[in-house]
């Protein structure tokens, strides 16, 4: 069982919702990324999504675009991101790390080499934003051979047929994009999300994480009522942006923010669990 599957199994056994923070590797400096990952784990992160910077992040909103530009200005490459994961793994053997990024840096590295080096560095899976299953056969096979999970996005526009198609190749968990738009966009319609998460779960057996539009403890709590995982990206990255000049303050600040979210999510989990017990 993969590290991601194990983690979701533990969460399910203890009836808890996962908290999955996203940061862009190397933002604002390469040196801060590993300490930040460690601080997020201490604050209650269950899985870490690590963004691999790409020059043309067409699915990302302005907050994550700027994070990407900060990281690229520091020369952060896919190889450098894998090295960060390797360093993180020296002290943390259990928290899953999922890379999130675009295909081209992987194309240039070479599929086989990427799969092999990512596994060797301690990466657990990847969400390649612009690689739908239809185009991904070769890379999917190589990643699976290395024991890596393939995490996919599902959108409000995904039809039942597409959800099933993605369910056939996805592993670990799926990431439901809760609003039509780019990362950091819009407000959340919890009822609509609940309905769609239910529809997804009726079609595929994987845990469903929900992201896009989760800004604070309140929205995190709402999503925790309906999802297996709460995914938070832009809300973290915008705080990193305001601290870009003082990176040493980032791990504590983000740790505190995640602790608030963790508390809000746990409160929901408790009430759901106790209601279920009654």
């Amino acid at each position, binding site marked *: 069982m993969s590290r991601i599957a194990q983690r979701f199994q533990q969460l399910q056994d203890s009836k808890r919702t996962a908290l999955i923070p996203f940061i862009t590797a190397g933002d604002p400096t390469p040196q801060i990324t590993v300490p930040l990952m460690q601080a997020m784990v201490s604050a209650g992160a269950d899985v870490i999504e690590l963004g691999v910077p790409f020059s043309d992040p067409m699915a990302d909103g302005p907050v994550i675009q700027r994070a990407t530009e900060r990281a690229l200005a520091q020369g952060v490459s896919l190889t450098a991101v894998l090295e960060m994961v390797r360093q993180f793994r020296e002290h943390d053997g259990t928290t899953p790390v999922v890379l999130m990024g675009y295909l081209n840096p992987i194309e240039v590295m070479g599929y086989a080499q990427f799969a092999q080096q990512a596994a060797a560095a301690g990466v657990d899976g990847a969400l390649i934003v612009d*690689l739908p299953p239809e185009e991904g056969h070769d890379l999917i096979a190589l990643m699976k051979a290395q024991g890596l999970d393939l995490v996919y996005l599902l959108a409000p526009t995904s039809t039942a047929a597409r959800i099933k198609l993605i369910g056939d190749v996805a592993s670990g968990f799926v990431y439901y994009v809760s609003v039509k738009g780019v990362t950091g966009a819009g407000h959340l319609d919890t009822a609509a999300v609940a309905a769609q998460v239910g529809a997804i779960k009726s079609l595929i057996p994987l845990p469903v994480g929900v992201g896009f539009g989760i800004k604070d403890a309140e929205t995190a709590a709402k999503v925790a009522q309906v999802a297996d995982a709460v995914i938070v990206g832009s809300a973290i990255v915008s705080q990193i942006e305001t601290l870009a000049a003082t990176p040493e303050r980032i791990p504590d600040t983000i740790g505190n923010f995640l602790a608030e979210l963790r508390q809000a999510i746990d409160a929901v989990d408790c009430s759901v669990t106790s209601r279920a017990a009654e």
Partner: protein
Amino acid sequence: MAIHADKNPNHPVENPPNPPLLKGGFSSSPVEKDTSSSPPFEKGGQGGISDFSNYTLPDEHGHFGVYGGMFVPETLMHPLEELRLAYAACCADPNFQAELDADLRDYVGRPSPLYHAERWSRELGGAQIYLKREDLNHTGAHKVNNTVGQALLAKRMGKTRIIAETGAGQHGVASATVAARLGLECVVYMGEVDVARQEANVYRMRLLGATVVPVKSGSRTLKDALNEAMRDWVTNIDNTFYIIGTVAGPHPYPMLVRDFQAVIGREARAQMLERTGRLPDALVACVGGGSNAIGLFYPFLNDREVAIYGVEAAGDGIETGHHAAPLTAGRPGVLHGNRTYLMEDANGQIIETHSISAGLDYPGVGPEHAWLKDSGRASYDAITDAEALAAFHHLTRTEGIIPALESSHALAYAHKLARTLRPDQNILVNLSGRGDKDMHTVASLDGLVL
């Protein structure tokens, strides 16, 4: 080079009762008859690949060999499928084709003339040069062929809002134009750098009622405008139609833009046959994203005796690294929804391009060109800023035609090519746009501020 007279008895004449629609693109009624009675596509023959006799690419997933495809976020997969189905339905609908043909004739001004640049040809002292005058279209470039078609498609799909990306501004103007005519809201994304160097076109778009949004991310040029338009589309998918201006992007865009632009080549093929009694010896067109080039090339792909040349922007020179020539000096990768040749660094980051012409200043290229290059059916070369400028002035002074700087790259290449050919051979050049929009750029090189 082999020369084929019209109605060569050695070739069975293919004359289908209805012109092929989906794969062959749309016909244009003024030249339809001529085109369908022209010699059929030659089978086998010389060249690097075995069979161009039955060209049907892309496949159903939008692949041209290993290129093309649909490399997009999940949020766009369903809208692209809707677009594919809507386009297929339009292709099968004679009313759609009739409406398109009428628009191309009455609004765009098609067919565009074929002009024998006799004086320029004589000065060059080689082959005869014929210009396909896309510069005489409404709005001054080939771009409008595509926007007219996509706008009709948008209307059929019930969309009320048009978005577009633009580099030089020609596609933005062409989109704003058709949006004004159909009463659709129009938002054009344009890199901040391009907004500054194409002021006149920005003003034209605003006059036409479009909102021009300067894009401040990345290199602030065409590629970033494309990213921003994609983001808008993802967000406003319900009411918005994205008019992509070139033969790049995810399937079905490279196919449908090609089909709409193929009117250029269909007309030119018939016009050359009528004028000279045979097919041209060579085609030349500039390639940024590559829509004017594919529009000219596509109806000739099966004519193996016709040599095909695409001309990229060599900027300051390929060796300087300051250029926009992915086919000449790049390598395959994935950007903007398709696999194609790209300008990228060793880590797969897209690098900034340079060309004097904003319309060629793009780090990728349409996937069909990538495939035509690898297959050997077309050859790609690059022309520097300086060479393009020289051709710009040369054509202006000898023929009284001021070409766009983009088209000037094709002219500069034709100049070189003509000198290697005999005076009884013919080169067909796509004069894709007029140079009015480039007055500021050219004047500033002469030290003038307009």
